[in-house]
């Protein structure tokens, strides 16, 4: 009975796409007598259909795999196919994407109940979902790039939902440009790869990579290929956009931080066989990942805004994932990717209920909510526990596996130190947020704080339940067994230690650098002075060149010509004889020319 669901699983991205397109019916001027909420309900319905289809397909999958290909472009020797494969891992990913979207959309119906911009918002969310499902379906590097680029545009639109607000438009613009830069570098890599590898299909590329030789050009191409995922996963130096994108509505933050960044990591993992060719590229990944992991967590600890305190943890976690991929610990990386979206979504949902009811995102203005909001507090704790290495929850299994791979890999001491330190810092960051919001005494902003609408609390609670049960759900898969690696105990210790330190509200480890970290390493100023500054200077210079030189030349030549024309016009004497003479001279010249030409055409020893 479930068999046809598996065969038609390629329909799954199309449901949310349809929902997103139907949202256009609520554009201004079309359906306006009644309100825009049906757009949200419709998108939710489509989402539900996609989720249901995915779930049923997963159940009916029973280890089979289905591949198909569809030619999109074929010209002059270039053929671009949309290759897709449906197998169990793809279905798990699609179901998870649709599931998290389902949570986020139900949550958004509650969170945005005072908002009128539903068609744009929910439509964009569904377009995101369609894109992500297509991303996990496809086997083609080219179409992965296409989806990433479309997600960049989607991010611009979604962060710009509240476009009347100045920080929003700045954030949307920066998010778009940062990710576009990453994507363009990826495009350069994709284009350059084709002549070398002959195909854009991931499976073909893996086969080719097995016997390819590293070379400087190839290394550059590989580093370029990494740029796209780097932008998507907000790794240093492309990390600024995630901070600024927090200006968008919280439900979009939930999705962006949980599944969209996971999409970037998915592409990275599929590129891994290629990256394994070049040790330099791998080292690059490790350096970028490790730096981001540490620095991201440190920045998060210095943040005063809740959403940003969590967003930098996203960068940090994915830094660890990049490190894993760079070291070749692919299984650990897949494991990490699998268990990441739900806890992060849960954390953001819990925090969102506090933001709505207490009109503030400032950690210094909150506190003392435990007695009145224990349920969301518990949900936050569960989410936090699911992300760091705390057995028996799923985060521990993943990090443990990573620790095991690092232990057996090159440079174990340094990398394990990074892992442990990052784990401790992430744990510290999460406990700090918890303590600031739920611990302590109530502030003016939190004296009155009742539990919010059921539409928000319900997904949060269900999410908490799912995170608690993740290890159980994962048990039948290959990620189920916990192999206690030698690093297990230090890992656990680092989690507890980090948490304990912030529980005691000890000062920030790099207290002197607090301001520098709180301002996100002044990255924005740095960008403004270097990259942006360079472009602005070049643009101004080009404009000057155009104005002075080109315009000036045209003006002068135009002036000269007009001058000449005026002078010539003086020769218009109005006397017929003068004209007749001119005509005669002209005719004579023409006659001469004809004569000469005839001579030239006649066979003659003369050559030009």
């Amino acid at each position, binding site marked *: 009975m479930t068999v046809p669901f598996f065969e038609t699983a390629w329909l799954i991205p199309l449901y949310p796409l349809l929902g997103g397109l139907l949202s256009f019916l609520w554009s201004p001027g079309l359906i306006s*007598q009644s309100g825009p909420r049906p757009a949200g309900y419709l998108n939710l319905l489509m989402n539900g259909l996609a989720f249901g289809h995915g779930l049923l397909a997963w159940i009916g999958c029973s280890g089979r795999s289905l591949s198909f290909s569809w030619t999109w472009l074929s010209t002059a020797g270039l053929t671009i196919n949309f290759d897709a494969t449906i197998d169990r891992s793809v279905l798990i990913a699609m179901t998870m994407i649709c599931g998290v979207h389902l949570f986020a959309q139900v949550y958004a119906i509650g969170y945005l109940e*005072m*908002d*009128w911009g539903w068609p744009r918002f929910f439509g964009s969310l569904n377009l995101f979902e369609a894109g992500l499902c297509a991303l996990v379906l496809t086997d083609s590097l080219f179409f992965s790039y296409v989806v990433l680029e479309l997600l960049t545009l989607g991010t611009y639109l979604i962060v710009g939902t509240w476009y009347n*607000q100045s920080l929003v438009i700045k954030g949307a613009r920066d998010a778009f440009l940062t990710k576009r830069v990453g994507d363009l570098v990826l495009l350069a890599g994709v284009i350059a790869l084709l002549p070398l590898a002959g195909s854009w299909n991931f499976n073909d590329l893996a086969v080719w990579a097995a016997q390819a030789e590293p070379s400087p050009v190839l290394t550059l191409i590989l580093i370029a290929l990494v740029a796209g995922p780097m932008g998507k996963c907000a790794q240093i130096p492309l990390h600024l956009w995630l901070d600024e994108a927090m200006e968008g509505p919280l439900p979009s933050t939930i999705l962006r931080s949980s599944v969209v960044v996971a999409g970037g990591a998915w592409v990275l993992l599929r590129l891994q066989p290629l990256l394994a060719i070049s040790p330099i590229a791998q080292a690059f990944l490790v350096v970028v990942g490790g730096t981001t992991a540490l620095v991201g967590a440190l920045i998060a600890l210095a943040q005063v805004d809740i959403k940003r305190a969590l967003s930098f943890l996203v960068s940090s976690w994915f830094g660890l994932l990049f490190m894993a991929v760079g070291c070749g610990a692919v299984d650990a990386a897949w494991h990490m990717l699998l268990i990441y979206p739900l806890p992060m979504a849960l954390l953001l949902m819990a925090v969102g209920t506090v933001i709505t009811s*207490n009109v503030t995102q400032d950690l210094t203005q909150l506190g003392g909510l435990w007695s009145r909001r224990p349920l969301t507090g518990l949900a936050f704790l569960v989410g936090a526990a699911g992300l760091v290495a705390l057995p028996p929850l799923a985060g521990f299994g993943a990090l443990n596996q990573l620790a095991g791979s690092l232990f057996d890999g090159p440079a174990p001491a340094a990398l394990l130190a990074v892992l442990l330190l990052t784990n401790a810092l992430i744990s510290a960051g999460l406990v700090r947020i918890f303590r600031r919001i739920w611990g302590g005494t109530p502030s003016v902003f939190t004296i009155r*704080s009742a539990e919010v609408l059921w539409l928000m609390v319900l997904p949060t609670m269900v999410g908490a339940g799912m995170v608690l049960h993740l290890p159980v759900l994962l048990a039948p898969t290959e990620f189920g067994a916990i192999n206690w690696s030698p690093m297990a105990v230090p890992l656990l210790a680092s989690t507890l230690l980090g948490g304990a330190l912030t529980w005691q509200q000890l000062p920030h480890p790099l207290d002197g650098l607090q301001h520098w970290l*709180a301002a996100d390493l002044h990255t924005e100023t740095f960008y403004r002075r270097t990259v942006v500054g360079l472009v602005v200077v070049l643009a101004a210079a080009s404009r000057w060149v155009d104005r002075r030189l080109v315009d000036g030349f045209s003006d002068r030549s135009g002036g000269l010509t007009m001058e000449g024309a005026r002078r010539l016009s003086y020769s218009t004497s109005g006397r017929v004889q003068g004209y007749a003479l001119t005509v005669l001279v002209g005719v004579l010249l023409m006659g001469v020319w004809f004569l000469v030409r005839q001579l030239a055409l006649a066979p003659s020893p003369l050559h030009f």
Partner: protein
Amino acid sequence: MTVLTSRPTLLPPSTHPFSEVVERLEAGGSMLPDTPENLTQIIGIYKAYAVPMDFYWRDLLYIAERVFLNPLPAFKYFPSQEYLDLPNSYAGESADLRIWRGEAGAHPELLEFMAKGETRRMPKLLHHLWHDRINMEFAEACMDAMFWHQGMGGRFYDYLESDTYKANADRAIKAYFKGNPLMLGLHKLFPEMFLEQVRKLSYYANLGLFWEVMAPVFFEMSDIYDEGGFAGVPDAMNFLVNGIFAVAGRPIYHHVYIDGECLEIIPKSEGFTWLYEAALPYVEAVFYRTAPFRGTKSYNAQAGQVPDVQADFHYGILYADVFPVGSAGIPPTLLMQDMVHFLPPYLKEIYLKHRRGEEDQLIQLGITFQRSMYNVTSAVIQALRAALFYPLDDPDPEHLLANRRFFESQMDRFLRPEARLRDVQTQDYR
């Protein structure tokens, strides 16, 4: 209250930046200039506001008294017929004090809208899903503002922390969850959680009882205007002032009906009055303060766009920028959409003639609404003056000076650039 036709000559002219407005207030007028179009606009919008308000107060009481602590209140916007028929204490035959000459049950226009909406006759659920309904979320947002803001005067806020209240609430919670071990267990573990919910529900009741009064007041004003009974904006304002004084002592209470039994969480005997516990906090919380709109202000902690102190919040209708209405992140859009269904024909005509006509009605009526709320605020200011200070025609210059200082201190709150007091002085502000 008398309306003086000339400025009292006992005082020199005011030196306040809003001197014109202050002097108009001293003469018994409103912050809104007295023009025929202003009168037409505000009465029309009062009527358009009062019809959804009729729904709001009934549903608010329904939620406070019946839905109570339901954990999944999916149908809280569907008040029972009992509440739709609930007689308004200030309208109809059975009223204690009949302010409105009309009937006591739900307004006929409201009932018609609930049945038919802007589309056609459908079951209530379909109307709800198609968003062809009254936006009750707005009422809840007003309630949230009153609930969250502190320091607005009255005893209600502090009473909710007192032991009597806690005991009453505890009894109600236990009675509601009788036979539900999960909820009772949660209550034992986290006693404050459900208590806070009950506090919120008490504010539901508070707001519902507040609007129960305002709706018939507005209906009556519309009827009087239709008969030509208002000579100008000050007349309309005075009607409001008289209404405020008439109802000032109305008791505010919170009764809950669980299994047919009535439990008094806030009994009438506590003596909370309408003026001090409902009206003034409402004006302060909803007209002046509320919360920054997500669509125009960033909540980013590092940007510092949201004030640190609640009293500094200035996002209510008196300060609001109405022009972004209709785009994302502007909560009053919900109220504007509610009002657009019930506009009287004379107001619709005005809108058709200006700007983009029917297309941007929401913005035009939003600005009209802003004008009308300045009028209501003027009524509140005049009422306070009458209660705490001196009559307008008091012969003693010292008393008049005290009046003036009071008016000027009220006008000080509108000095900040976001205040729209300057804009509503011109007719061109649409």
